[in-house]
């Protein structure tokens, strides 16, 4: 019953890039935000990253530093960098696994990572990588949105939605995501508390293609910029 009490949350988005410095700089300019926290995990995990926070949502930029890292294959398939992953929070990992099994979905990750349950689906089905954690802390995780003093954006107060381009019928994917994450579905849209994911038909490119941000200045609503092959839209 814990799932019913605590709905799933969309916690963070991940963009992959061959050039972290350039992507970070462009995003900082658009979001009017100071640099985030950099982590070099090349020796063990083969990539480095930068964590930023927009409202209560994290934005992670990742760059592979080892030639064998899978992100390099993804760049080749994707035609370069882009929106790579949406990360969620579940509150009952075993129940989540059971729902995934009932949907006959294969997991590309089913593991305990740094003490936290991590479950990930094949991007071939959902367009982008969908990954969920059951965090060991009630309201915190390895990105440490609570303990760290993340810089604030002068442009946006939060992330409220995302577009994911899929090859299967968008409404079919939305329905399945709704069942997995126990979230309400409206056509091709899935509502996750304060955020909405829209599944749209892939036209040449699939995956996380757009992010909606709440504009701090109402006059900037409707502004948008394509950064890291993702459309950042102020709404």
């Amino acid at each position, binding site marked *: 019953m814990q799932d019913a009490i605590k709905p799933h949350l969309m916690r963070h988005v991940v963009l992959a890039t061959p050039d972290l410095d350039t992507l970070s700089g462009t995003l900082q300019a658009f979001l009017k935000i100071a640099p985030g926290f950099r982590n070099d995990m090349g020796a*063990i*995990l083969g990539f480095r990253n930068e964590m930023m926070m927009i409202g209560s949502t994290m934005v992670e930029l990742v760059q592979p530093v*080892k030639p*064998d890292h*899978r992100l390099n294959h993804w760049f080749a398939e994707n035609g370069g960098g882009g929106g790579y992953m949406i990360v969620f929070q579940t509150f009952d990992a075993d129940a989540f696994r059971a729902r995934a099994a009932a949907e006959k979905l*294969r997991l*590309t990750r*089913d*593991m305990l990572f740094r003490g936290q349950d991590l479950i990930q689906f094949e991007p071939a089905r959902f367009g982008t990588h969908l990954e969920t954690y059951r965090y060991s802390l009630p309201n915190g995780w390895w990105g440490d949105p609570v303990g760290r003093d993340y810089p604030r954006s002068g442009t946006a107060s939060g992330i409220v939605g995302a577009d994911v381009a899929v090859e299967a019928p968008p409404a079919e994917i939305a329905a399945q995501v709704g069942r997995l994450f126990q979230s309400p579905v409206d056509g091709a849209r899935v509502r996750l508390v304060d955020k909405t994911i829209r599944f749209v038909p892939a036209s040449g490119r699939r995956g996380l293609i757009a992010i909606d941000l709440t504009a701090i200045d109402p006059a900037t609503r409707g502004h948008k910029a394509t950064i890291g092959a993702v459309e950042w839209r102020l709404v």
Partner: protein
Amino acid sequence: MDRRTMLAATGAFLGTPLMAAVPGERPTRIRHYVIATHDMPFVCDQIYEVLGLPPTPRKPGPGVTEAYGFYSTMMRVGTTMLEIVQPIKPDHHLNAWLAERGGDGGYMVVAQTYDDRALIARAGAEWLKPSRDMMFKGQHMIQFDDRHFGAFFELYQYAPEDNWWGDPLNGPYGDARVASDVIGGDVAVADPAAIAAQAARLFLGEQSGNSVRFGDRTINFVPIEGKAHGLVALDLKAREQARVGDWARIGGVQFRFV
């Protein structure tokens, strides 16, 4: 019949516990583990990613094992090899094994014996008939059935002694960033205590409860849960202390960081 063979045979005949090893005899060394799957690339990709292991390059043309009806990818973690196998033809025995088990899983534990004749003698003393007793690539292979030991246990007397057909010393293998070696695993069997005792006698291990230590590796015999008999977990030495306690389920096997 030499003295060692005679001792083992006598012990079995009298129904008495056998000596685990003749003084000076070297214990079996676990060399590699085999995971069977219907989708080798899917399993390999997960292992590469989770262990931070550079993919093993594929040689052009058909692989060696394709003549035997299955695909195979070898990878190395420290001094231990992992082999991922996938049947090619529907009538290959791996398909029956996968169907019986209900999906991917740990199929085999491969070890090195230093005295094949003594191993055969100990098997006879245990009333065990090897499921295979043959020369393979010039090396004596002796295999024991998974119906008895949960997973297939396959032993070789390698020549040269410090390398073998998987070529762990000189093969095109990268180093895993996340784990430094595989130091043991769990094998699910119907009667863990009895099988642990027999494995210790047969393979010259040191028994402690339902676990058997072979040099620097330990196999734990555990009860079967559901249909998942066989090799159900591997223990990997984490390079980072922060990863100790983490695990990943890949190919029906739990990779545990210790």
